[in-house]
């Protein structure tokens, strides 16, 4: 078939198909509202994006089944901000414009990467669309210096997050390493990405403030495959290692090679990118990547409270629906969605979709409103940061889960008072 004929046939088929595209189905009773999602959903980042998206999906489906959204039927408008396999701020901004232009979208969840957020917030701010990120930890997104992300409406906040910013998690890890583990000489390694470097920076600052020494500070770019030279360089000089990053950007592999280099008895501490609480054997879990034997003596912080309504129950229903273990950010995305759903329910009497959108944003940023979520009962301060500044500390028990290894809870600490 010649090129032209092929093109003509495809074009004709598309027009026919397009003409048959109806609008999305009407809801039961009051119509449909949508929750927009922007996450990296293709290429290498799908390991981050997909479990996070599933958290949103789970919350939406439960709310629809229980009619918990004020009589509205919920749908998801899903957007992928990865281009050529990498999260792309430009694509994120375009996605945000798509979501904003869809009048049925009254709130959004995402993005995953702080850099994408930096491109998206100006867009959602201009439209007044409530935006919840399950994973952004960049401090400047909500705190001092965040005005530059709100050029249009500098005094109106629309961006909030359930993830704990770097300025809490890093210092928490430092205090744990210094006080609880009693270590004074640290080696800090980050994965040169925004989250990893951010949390490693705050760890280092706090560790030094407490009186410890950071013997060496290195960055291992994404292209690093061999961490052995890193550990060879500090062998015998340090008594604790902090890895800023996630198990996917090298955290698991680094520990494995650290042990292979003979430094297994030195504790390895990391943020919630490491402490994914996944059991050994689960796909993509830290313990799986590092190996059970190497996971001994590994500690991690989790930006969340431990005494929450049953993490096991969440994992169980996630697994029942998606046939996989939840990812590190699934519960956070689920919580984001719960917050938005409660805000939507509060707008049950709003006259039109634009009014719902405004009501949702106003509801979230009324600091006295509390939300019961899978992370516990939380509210948001005027910056959009979660009131919950609990950090939970976990360590790996290689003998747990019948020898496959799992994470056990050590303690939790409220950092709200120490801010």
């Amino acid at each position: 078939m010649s090129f032209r004929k092929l093109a003509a046939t495809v074009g004709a088929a598309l027009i026919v198909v397009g003409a048959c595209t109806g609008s999305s189905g009407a809801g039961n009773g009051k119509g449909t509202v949508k929750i927009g999602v922007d996450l990296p959903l293709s290429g290498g980042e799908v390991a981050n994006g997909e479990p996070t998206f599933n958290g949103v999906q789970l919350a939406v489906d439960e709310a629809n089944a229980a009619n918990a959204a004020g009589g509205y039927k919920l749908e998801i408008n899903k957007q992928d901000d990865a281009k050529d396999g990498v999260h792309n701020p430009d694509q994120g901004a375009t996605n945000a414009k798509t979501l904003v232009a869809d009048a049925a979208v009254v709130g959004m969840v995402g993005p995953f990467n702080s850099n994408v957020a930096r491109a998206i917030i100006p867009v959602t701010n201009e439209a007044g669309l409530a935006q919840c990120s399950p994973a952004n930890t960049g401090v400047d997104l909500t705190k001092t210096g965040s005005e530059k992300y709100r050029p249009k409406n500098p005094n109106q906040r629309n961006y909030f997050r359930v993830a704990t910013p770097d300025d809490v998690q890093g210092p928490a890890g430092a205090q744990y390493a210094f006080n609880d583990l009693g270590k004074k000489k640290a080696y800090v390694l980050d994965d040169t990405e925004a989250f990893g470097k951010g949390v490693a920076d705050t760890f280092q600052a706090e560790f030094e403030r407490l009186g410890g020494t950071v013997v060496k500070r290195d960055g291992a770019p994404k292209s690093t495959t061999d961490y052995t030279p890193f550990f060879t360089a500090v062998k015998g000089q340090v008594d604790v290692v902090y890895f800023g990053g996630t198990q996917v950007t090298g955290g698991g592999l680094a520990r494995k090679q650290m042990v292979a280099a003979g430094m297994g008895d030195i504790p390895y501490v990391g943020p919630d990118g490491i402490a994914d609480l996944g059991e050994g054997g689960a796909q993509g879990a830290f313990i799986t990547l590092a190996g059970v034997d190497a996971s001994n003596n590994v500690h991690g912080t989790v930006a969340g409270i431990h005494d929450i309504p049953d993490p096991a129950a969440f994992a169980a229903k996630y697994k029942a629906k998606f046939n996989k273990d939840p990812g590190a950010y699934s519960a956070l995305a689920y919580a984001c969605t719960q917050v938005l759903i409660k805000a939507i329910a509060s707008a049950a009497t709003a006259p039109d979709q634009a009014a719902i959108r405004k009501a949702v944003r106003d509801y979230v940023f009324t600091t006295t409103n509390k939300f019961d979520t899978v992370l516990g009962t939380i509210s948001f301060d005027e910056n959009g940061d979660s009131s919950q500044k609990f950090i939970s500390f976990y360590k790996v028990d290689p003998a747990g889960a019948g020898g496959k290894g799992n994470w056990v809870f050590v303690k939790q600490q409220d950092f709200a008072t120490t801010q």
Partner: protein
Amino acid sequence: MIDSHLVATLTQQFFNALTLGAIYALVALGYTMVYGIIELINFAHGDVFMVGAFVALAFLSTIGFTRSISDPLQLILVLVGTFGVTMIVLGTIGVGIERFAYRPLRNAPRLAPLITAIGVSFILQNVVQAWQGPSPVPTPQLLSPQVRFGLFGADIAVLSIVILGITLALMIALQLFVGRTRLGRAMRSTAQDREAAQLMGVDINTTIAITFFLGSALAGAAGIVYGLYFGSIQFNLGFFSGLKAFTAAVLGGIGNTVGAALGGFIIGFIEVGAVQVGLSRWSEALVFAVLIIVLVFRPAGLLGQQLGERA
């Protein structure tokens, strides 16, 4: 104490660099062979290397060896089996890629097969991602890296020595094949002047196919070695490692197999050196900076020959 500690550290880093360099060298060999014969920058080669690692993983899982093996005889048997199977499978894949994606474009403008190569690279990555998931996957380290011996106060893993041995053996085998056999002569003559080789009765298509087979088999071997040493593989590892290996091939003089090996080791040393002095954030930039400086002074690479301007 500091002095002997430094000696121990540097000795350790030396072996780290050798091992890392060996892996780059193995992959670089494949790049350089293919380039030498059809002047194609085969971007898919890095992903062929990645596929090799996964094929080895699948093979080992199938025959049931997923932990380290302590019996040396059993270890050797399993290794030989793994190398044999993986290299043959990868060689076949390489020939297939050449036959369907590159051969039709042999006379196309330079860029067309380059684009195709990247298309193939995307396809390979996606297929493996669909097969094994996007997260890193642990691989069995048949020879545990914990088995070590001492040297100048450093703990050298026996695994490193084994890898070096395997790499050297493969490189020597390749050199012998290319230098001493008829097929090797056919490869060299095709690389030098395709038309003249044809006139002398060389079957170009077969020769090129064999080149791809060998190059891909070597990439497969590199993949096995990678899995053995690092213990973790991921569907996108081909891109970065492939890029560095390609840089190694160019550094040494593309088309020159000894140069490729040399380039691989040089890059290994640059990377490890950067880590030791705390410049690891800059390692990518350093590798390329060295390449550029070398090319400024020796435009055909370290061991490359400056051929006359081709019409």
